[in-house]
């Protein structure tokens, strides 16, 4: 017998797995419910990772499209949140790696033979556009803690955000990031150490 479509009030009472089942049956409103549930946490994570609102929105959009178009391959034994955060985090990390390749400061080309050639082939950290974007992000993300989080290694950053901002358990973070549980614990411990130091420095200034 066909399953009737839930009313808007019913959607809120359904688990992620149940909403996914409705999406697999082709219910447009189930897709919207999943977007409604996860757009905020996923966007916040990605935004804090890449610190550029426009880019974060593009990456979040890509994440949702990727997940929702493959909704029938979702395996209910895993959490839907783990799946979507995993894809979002991978997208953000890939972007950060790409950006670091684009903007990493190097001491000129190893093949440069003159001072001018070395100067001409030296890459600078960031460019004017990135600095402006960083400034905008810093104004919105504003606080000392945000600035300190932004200085962490991307792997530490995702771990600490997932653990202490989103409140995800260690096991789920390990599953999301494809890391051993011990590594996740170590990353989070090191990230907290670094943050304590960075914040102490910021307050001393």
């Amino acid at each position, binding site marked *: 017998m066909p399953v009737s479509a839930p009313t808007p009030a019913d959607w809120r009472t359904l688990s992620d797995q149940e909403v996914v089942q409705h999406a697999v*049956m082709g219910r447009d409103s189930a897709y919207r419910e999943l977007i409604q549930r996860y757009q905020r946490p996923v966007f916040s994570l990605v935004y804090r990772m890449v610190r550029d609102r426009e880019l974060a929105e593009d990456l979040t959009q890509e994440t949702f499209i990727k997940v929702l178009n493959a909704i029938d391959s979702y395996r209910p034994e895993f959490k839907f949140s783990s799946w979507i955060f995993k894809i979002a985090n991978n997208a953000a990390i890939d972007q950060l790696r790409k950006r670091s390749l684009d903007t990493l400061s190097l001491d000129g080309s190893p093949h440069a033979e003159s001072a001018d050639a070395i100067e001409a082939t030296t890459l600078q950290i960031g460019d004017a556009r990135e600095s402006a974007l960083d400034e905008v992000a810093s104004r919105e993300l504003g606080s000392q803690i945000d600035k300190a989080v932004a200085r962490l290694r991307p792997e530490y950053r995702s771990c600490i955000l997932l653990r202490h*901002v989103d409140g995800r358990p260690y096991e789920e973070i390990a599953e999301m990031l494809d890391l051993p549980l011990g590594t996740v614990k170590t990353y*989070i411990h090191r990230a907290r150490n670094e943050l304590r130091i960075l914040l102490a420095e910021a307050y001393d200034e």
Partner: protein
Amino acid sequence: MNTQLDHHVTAEELDSLAMAAEAPRAIAHVATCTSCQIMVERDHHLVMMLAAMPMFDPSSAFAQRVMSGVKVRIPVLHGVSARERAARRRVAVGSVIASSAVAAGFAWAVTNPADALQWSAPAVQGAGTALWLSIQAVAANAAEQPWFGGFRDLMASPGRAFPIVAAAAGLYAVGLVGLRRILAEPASNAGW
């Protein structure tokens, strides 16, 4: 002196204290160690700050933009998609109408054979004449073509005609199969 209490707070214990979980040894040690006390306080403060970090919303058109890039699955109930069920329903209704019309016509012809014959005779005769004229026209046209002589010689021998006809039939079958594959629905996304 309790040597266990002399050890500074471990990472696990620091985590337990930050999460307000049970850590009796660490609590006892912190009470006597100023450096650990400062570290635990700072860590606790840090965790509170992280938990209080605001969340951000994407722009208001975000959901709409996502939906425009998503291919909503066609509902599948009992193994048959809604589109397929609608198509089947249309075919069934069409078949019933056509069968009813044929049956009604047949019943009328049986009950009124004289009328049926009177009405159908000119139509049957006309159709037969038209068909015969068409065949004649096509044959006359073909006979006028420059290649017709060679073709007639080729087909005059059954030994030559048979493989040619067989090859043409094979080519036709291959064409049909190819067309069917081209028109077949693409396979669904295998996911990742």
